[in-house]
């Protein structure tokens, strides 16, 4: 069962390695550079990759941008050019803005909790290296669960009639109504999303921790008695590249990959339930048949995420150290 996530994590670890290389400007390694006799050959090599990117990314993106300027007839009989009207509608809609606010809240909470708990578990596991293998396998197995299944399992935990979380809340005199009460649903969404992402963060943090040289830790042991100081002044800065990488991955996860979880929890529920912008794009476009409006929303989302990523690289880059 743990085979699949391990392999996925392996590929992403190479990704992290490349990311580090790029970060520290070591990409121009002359040994790794290959020379081709004919100038066309390299293009042939990247052609399949380019084809995939064009078909699955650029083409739909262009489609989305184009259709965001039109209002489509709900019955599919042609469309009318309306300029920026779809954008205005979206940004002026209070419903859209409240979804955006929830998305921001959801994103920050899930990322912070998933990173924080992942780090906490990794630090604890790092201390008992012996048991780490079992510990690792136990924790990582959650990662093997597909998001919709995670959503379903989560649903069971929060079930109104027999879910253990609902019962626990009941002992404290609180009636948890997931799928009906807005904030109860939000709590369930956050809990399940965090739970799903912790193993991923854990594995990366643990391997980051284990790559801190033993002698550096020992030097710190001689320099200060306080475990907290050693962690804050020595371990954490050395983990910064890993943490930054995970931050970007986690934000992407909360923005996009939580879709199936949300789907399982709020689908077909009549009430006003929290959702993220991505889910709203889907609802308006496919359930509400408003292709133009939903395209405009997805373009806005694209721009926001791009801006976020640029900002992260700009401002956090300076605070991250490499050995």
């Amino acid at each position, binding site marked *: 069962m743990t085979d699949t996530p391990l392999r996925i994590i392996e590929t992403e670890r190479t990704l992290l390695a490349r990311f580090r290389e790029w970060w520290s400007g070591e990409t121009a390694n002359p040994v790794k550079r290959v020379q081709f006799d004919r100038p066309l050959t390299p293009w042939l090599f990247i052609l399949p990759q380019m084809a995939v990117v064009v078909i699955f990314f650029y083409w739909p993106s262009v489609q989305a941008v184009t259709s965001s300027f039109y209002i489509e007839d709900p019955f599919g009989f042609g469309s009318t050019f309306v300029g920026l009207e779809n954008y205005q509608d979206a940004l002026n809609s209070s419903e859209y803005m409240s979804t955006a606010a929830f998305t921001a809240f959801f994103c920050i909470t899930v990322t912070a909790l998933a990173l924080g708990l992942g780090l906490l578990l990794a630090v604890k596991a790092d201390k008992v290296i012996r048991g780490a293998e079992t510990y690792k396998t136990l924790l990582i197995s959650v990662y093997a669960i597909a998001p919709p299944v995670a959503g379903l399992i989560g649903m069971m935990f929060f079930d109104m009639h027999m879910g253990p979380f609902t019962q626990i809340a009941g002992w404290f005199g609180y009636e948890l109504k997931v799928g009906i009460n807005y904030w109860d649903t939000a709590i369930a969404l956050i809990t399940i999303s965090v739970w799903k992402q912790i193993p991923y963060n854990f594995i990366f943090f643990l391997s980051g921790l284990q790559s801190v*040289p033993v*002698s*550096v830790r*020992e*030097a*710190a*042991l*001689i*320099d*200060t*008695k*306080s475990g907290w*100081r050693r962690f804050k*002044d*020595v371990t954490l*800065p*050395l983990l*910064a590249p890993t943490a930054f990488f995970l931050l970007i991955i986690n934000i992407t996860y909360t923005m996009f990959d939580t879709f199936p979880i949300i789907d399982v929890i709020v689908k077909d529920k009549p009430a006003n339930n929290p959702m993220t912008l991505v889910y709203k794009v889907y609802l308006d476009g496919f359930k509400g048949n408003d292709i133009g409006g939903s395209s405009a929303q997805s373009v806005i989302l694209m721009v926001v995420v791009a801006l976020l990523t640029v900002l992260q690289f700009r401002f956090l880059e300076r605070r991250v*150290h*490499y*050995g």
Partner: protein
Amino acid sequence: MAHLSLKNVGKTYGGSNQAAVAGVDIEIADGEFIVLVGPSGCGKSTLLRMVAGLETVTDGEIRIGDRVVNQLDPAERDIAMVFQNYALYPHMSVRDNMAYGLKNRKTPKAEIEARVAEAARMLELGPYLDRKPRALSGGQRQRVAMGRAIVRQPAAFLFDEPLSNLDAKLRVTMRMEIRRLQKRLGTTSLYVTHDQLEAMTLADRLVVLNGGRVEQIGAPLEVYRKPASTFVAAFIGSPAMSLLDARFENGQVMVDGHALAPVGNAPGPVTLGLRAEDLRITSTGVPMRVDYVEELGAHRIVHGAIGDQPVAVVDNGGAALAETVHVLVDPAKLHLFETSTGRRMDTRIQAEAVPAQ
């Protein structure tokens, strides 16, 4: 600054049934430079790390100054350590690397600055204070590691093979520098190395370890001139002392059927130790087959065998050597060891043996 005392110190790693270090007794005076030397795996690092507090002590007692430190954290032991791979904090500047230990001990800012400046001056690190370790050469990193220890002004310096990552030439320079600094600061030092040359040149006293036990403690020359066992004899000195099976016959020590020197009598077989520089190639003496010659410029080392037992001889001549030469030794300079235990036999046996003749 303080004296250091190890009493019957031992260590058995969890899960292992053999002691890595056993029964070590050393008294180290204030300001003394002690070098722990021995082959790989003999427990040098383990012993040093027990003093540092990085390894628990399973037997005996370690004192630094007047305190028993067995149960104290490394940070509370008032020691500073220099690691083989320097163990600098990669994300801190040279200045912060040196200041970190002091900051954590709530040393006043001005005092920290003064100490860092002084260490930087001593180690010629001034221009690099704001650099990160990765922008330094191996030798410079080594100095920073030294600086980090010096600014602390600890009771003792602990070094674990601090020079083995440097190239041969730099190693010699740094060796002298460490010695000079230690003399000037007068800080008690415990230094681990497997390089016997480093051990000889640095130490006030050597501690030769073998399989976790102390084989011999003494000043470098004393250890060199009077090795307590065949182990020490073979380990200290370069080229290694030649060890040969020998017998006594009529007051003569006999090797391969030839009388080598009049020493005295002793029962049974003995092991004879011969230093290369104590042997001379002459026209008379014991015949030795020449295998190959190492030219070192100042002199040459002739490797060969007496019978089938290998021997090395230092020779100052320049002439070509015959296939077989004859060697002689000053009887006062040969070493005798009991074959069964490997322990040194006093050559006083001569004095006892002669009247008996």
